[in-house]
């Protein structure tokens, strides 16, 4: 069976999942099973089929599992959001369509993704500008102390979601050029690159620190910086870079945790979620404590789909259930089994991403695939880790699952890029 037929077959389980999921929600909320769930499943299958056709025509050799995997994740997200709030789910379905359009546009317009290298400084500058946009008075929005969103008229989006793609493209291109130079000199027995070349790297570190200060979001900066260090390590094969990098990041994070109130609050809420004072405090540990309580109620098998206690009357119990805490909702309803299953789907996605990186022939493609995959993986780690108290909770989305337009669109573009890289890699490998 060729790659495209395997992909087509892989879409079937995703469609069955969405039919079953909506069926379960309808059973919860109405007295009878509505065949609307079949309609939703059919529409979903149709949209995925359209994406599949585009890949079939333009990227016949691309990885056959990426599209089915993100179809599964998106359908889980749509069903859980639908169960939380019908209106939000309708929005999310529209964003899913917008994401598919962005996905198709990337594949069609970017026949040869290596042209991106030509515009790397422009891309880098645009990305940094995007990152700082939320601090511009008038269009910037503050949520829970972090500046992540901007609003332009009726539209609001999170520029960081798009900036992360641009910065990874820039870094892949920059590191491709300088990787040989970075490891060329050794002083005192350790690799010490010339300042000229290490400068831009320090700039990235500075950028991550700037994000801590300006955007005030520990999660996003950890995600960016982790992705950067992974690419640096892959480019140089020197462990010293990520070790020093994490050390510097740790120092910076500690400094800001002790000086910037908002970051410090998050850290103490993480350390003592049940401290009565922090629990009562606005923006304190209430959210993380409720997340843990909700997961405890889930147990091994979960309370059942649609059973989660999200709010009493008009007062929410689980704040931001459809974005930050969506993993807690899933664990509450589907239990440990459901949570682990979801993590395994992400592991499959990451495995496919790194396979693309391994198969790619040129350094730019390898670095780009590594960076994109690592950033998605770290985003999952930052939010699931926050919700499960591995690290302090910060508000990033769970890729493809959480409610949020920017996140869906940006992540679809990431997968489109991975498909572009894999198509070239597998075609060249076949020759």
């Amino acid at each position, binding site marked *: 069976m060729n790659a495209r037929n395997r992909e087509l077959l892989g879409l079937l389980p995703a469609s069955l999942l969405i039919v079953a999921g909506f069926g379960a929600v309808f059973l919860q*909320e109405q007295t009878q099973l509505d065949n609307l769930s079949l309609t939703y499943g059919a529409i979903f299958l149709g949209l995925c089929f359209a994406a599949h056709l585009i890949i079939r025509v333009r990227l016949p050799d691309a990885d056959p599992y990426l599209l089915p995997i993100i179809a599964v994740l998106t359908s889980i997200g749509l069903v859980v959001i639908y169960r939380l709030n019908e209106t939000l789910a309708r929005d999310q379905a529209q964003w899913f369509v917008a994401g598919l359009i962005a996905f198709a546009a990337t594949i069609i317009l970017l026949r040869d993704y290596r042209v991106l290298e030509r515009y790397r400084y422009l891309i880098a500058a645009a990305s940094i500008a995007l990152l700082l946009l939320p601090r511009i008075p008038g269009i910037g929005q503050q949520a829970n102390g972090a500046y992540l969103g901007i609003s332009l008229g009726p539209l609001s989006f999170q520029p960081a979601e798009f900036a992360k793609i641009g910065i990874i493209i820039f870094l892949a291109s920059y590191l491709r050029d300088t990787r040989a130079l970075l490891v060329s000199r050794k002083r005192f027995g350790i690799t010490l690159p010339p300042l000229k070349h290490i400068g831009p790297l320090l700039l990235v570190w500075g950028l991550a620190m700037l994000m801590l200060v300006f955007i005030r979001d520990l999660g996003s900066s950890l995600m960016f910086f982790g992705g950067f260090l*992974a690419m640096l390590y*892959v*480019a140089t094969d020197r462990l010293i870079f990520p070790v020093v990098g994490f050390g510097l990041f740790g120092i910076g994070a500690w400094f800001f945790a002790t000086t910037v109130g908002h970051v410090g609050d998050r850290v103490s809420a993480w350390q003592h979620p049940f401290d009565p004072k922090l629990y009562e405090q606005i923006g304190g540990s209430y959210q993380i404590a409720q997340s843990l309580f909700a997961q405890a109620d889930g147990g091994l098998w979960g309370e059942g789909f649609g059973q989660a206690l999200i709010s009493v009357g008009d*007062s929410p119990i689980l704040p931001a259930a459809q974005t930050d805490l969506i993993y807690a909702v899933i664990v509450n309803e589907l239990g*440990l089994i459901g949570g682990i299953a979801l993590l395994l789907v992400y592991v499959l996605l*990451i495995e496919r991403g*790194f396979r693309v990186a391994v198969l790619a022939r040129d350094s730019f493609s390898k670095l780009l695939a590594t960076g994109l995959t690592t950033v998605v993986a770290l985003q999952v780690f930052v939010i699931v880790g926050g919700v*499960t*108290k591995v690290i302090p909770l910060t508000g990033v989305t769970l890729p493809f699952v959480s409610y949020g337009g920017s996140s869906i669109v940006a992540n679809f573009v990431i997968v489109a890029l991975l498909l572009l890289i894999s198509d070239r890699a597998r075609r060249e490998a076949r020759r």
Partner: protein
Amino acid sequence: MNKPIIRVFVVLLVLFGLLAYFTTRWTVIDRAELQDNPQNKRELLAQQRIARGSIEAANGTVLARSIRRSGGTYARRYPQNGLFAQTVGYSFLNPGTAGLERFYNGQLTGRTAGLEGTLRKLQGKRQQGNDLETALDPQAQQIAIDQLAGRAGAVVALDPSSGRVKVLASVPSYDPNVLRSAKQTARLNSAPGAPLLNRTTAGLYPPGSTFKVVTAVAAIDSGLYEPTSLVNGDNGVEISGVPLNNDGRQSFGEVDLTTALTQSVNTVWAQVGERVGKRRMSRYMQQFGFGSPVPVDLPADERLASGLYCSPDGNRRLVSPTNSCVDIGRASIGQDKLLATPLQMAMVASAVANRGILMRPAIATRTIDPEGRTAYEKTPQRFSRVMSAASAEKLTAMMQRVVQEGTGTAAALAGIDVAGKTGTAERDVINNIAQPWFIAFAPASDPQIAIAVTIEKTVGGFGGTDAAPIAKAVMESLLR
């Protein structure tokens, strides 16, 4: 470059393993701890979304119901206010639950287990509570409260043949509707007279001479005595080496047991108790229910055990009647270290009334699901056989005499034979403060009702003059 790529993948796998481990920790390893966390109100909050079933009296009077509030939540209301406050209890987010509301929480919230619960969920039905039907009688309860007239005390009435409880009056009472406010809850918690305390099941009092019924049962059922057996009823007979006084220091000479019960002769019953002995007394007390928390469908922390309380190390605790700290002669006349709940004393009357068989007291009769079917039925249950039917008959005759010509004449009902026993426990001899008691059942030929009445403190009062009239009024209402 492939080796470092795979290493990055491995590092990410480790991070995901960490996520899986932490998820396991919260859902399985630390689950119970998180669910018991005082800040975790999820279960209580979830219950606010359930239409709890109502609680109803035997005649259909609604004692507790849920009203719908905006946003799909429900709040509890108690239309009878303080009438059955301590028994019905309450269910609010803040003070939590108590009484029947707590004991039958599962039924009232409709937490249907097993196949039926799954089926209901599959049909998409909202969880809805079952209604709770009780045997409680609001009219008799109101009369009991009126008769206590603000004096702290308790009245218990039940059907001896089924154990169904009709009256559980505890004064002072409170209005459970005010517990919605945290301030009022705090005020009630420290209010004088402890209105939140259910005196019928958790009030421990010296039972006085009403306990002589237990001694008489032990004496006659064991075959050691007959109602006609003669015992020296002189004042000042030495019991455990100390002379014991009769009421008014009266000497009765040689009297039979019927007369000794009718006139409540202390010295006779103390000697009988000593001869019956600790072992036999202990066995009969156990059969009556002494020694373990009074068996009724209320939460465990609202029920206390009647029996002998010694404090060898300064801490009062329940001991067996065979314990060396017990003066069995004085315990046999309801003094010494003997304490009992009003419900326990009603059970004593009930066992005699029901031809020697003690039925387990029960407030609820059944629960009804939202479709009107019986969800759970509380069928009458036997607690123990305390004595033979023949012994019960002899005791009935003796207790009838108490009401006909003895200390309990104030409980006599026109045209109905009442069997009873008075009691007056000394609480403060210097200030002449005593606790009057009366236990009874009626009609003696076919008992429909067994009752226990006590008033915590009266100045110069007696069981026959203060408690018996209350019993009479309540029985009249119940037998009408």
